[in-house]
């Protein structure tokens, strides 16, 4: 089963994990790593690498999911994973994680799962105009 490691600024990772389990139940092979104020990027990156190494040792597929491209959780993940054949998804949101955890148990084709999950996460961001929602006829 696909391992998932969520890396964000501050406690966003822990918070989105709480929200996820509220909807989809407790998750195995799911790690959260919040980068905290004052923390050293390279030490943080080393901790991420240790998590990735555990998946590598088990020959288990895994994906890192970060909050913001080019920001420290992304940069530290990229530095940690430079030697591994894996993937980082940037722009974490709840629909993305839901799609990943709900599909990962039966998914055979991991790259296809990641593509589908990213597309559905993009599609999940919508403008819902209240006037249109409640006033369609007038």
């Amino acid at each position, binding site marked *: 089963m696909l391992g998932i490691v969520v890396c964000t*600024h501050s406690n966003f990772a822990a918070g989105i994990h709480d929200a996820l389990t509220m909807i989809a139940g407790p998750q195995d092979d799911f790690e959260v790593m919040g980068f905290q104020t*004052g923390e*050293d*990027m390279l030490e943080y990156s080393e901790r991420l690498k240790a998590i990735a190494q555990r998946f590598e040792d088990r020959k288990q597929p895994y994906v890192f999911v970060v909050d*913001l*491209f*080019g*920001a*420290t959780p*992304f*940069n530290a993940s*990229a*530095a940690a994973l*430079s030697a591994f054949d894996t993937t980082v998804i940037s722009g974490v949101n709840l629909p993305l994680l839901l799609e990943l955890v709900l599909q990962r148990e039966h998914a055979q084709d991991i790259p296809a799962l990641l593509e589908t999950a990213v597309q559905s996460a993009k599609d999940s961001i919508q403008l819902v105009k209240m006037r249109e929602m409640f006033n369609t006829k007038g």
Partner: protein
Amino acid sequence: MLTLARCDDRLIHGQCMTVIIKEYDIQHILVVDDFTAGNPILKTVFQTAVPSNMTANVYSVKEAIEPIKTAMKDQVKTLLLMKNPIVYEELRRHIEDLPMELNIGPMSNRKGTVAATPQAQLLPDEAEAIKHLTADGVRVFFRQIPSQKAVEWDEVKDRF
């Protein structure tokens, strides 16, 4: 052109990417850091992890001199980014007409640092470098993001 010279000990990160780049309309980031320039993995990360409409290059102090001179002559809005003011003092020895303003952004709490502002903590040799820069007439000011009020070196220098 050098739009902004800034110290930030995390170099390129979220605040830089989301706030600084937009506020100053930056098109190119020129990072000067010997450690990052000497680490192929980190160098690749910083040079690659930027939006597709902009570019970033990482140089050691020695390598940076010519690219900085070029950047000062062209029309590309460039952010000059260093981990600390010691690097700026060193660059000034090689490039006479560097901007006379240095912005100090986030500098983390490390062993032996003293707070200039809550977000900018300085080691003694970093404070020394600021003293030299200001003695030469460079304005050194502390500010994380442009919407905050700038704190001038004069307001905090008595702590060092």
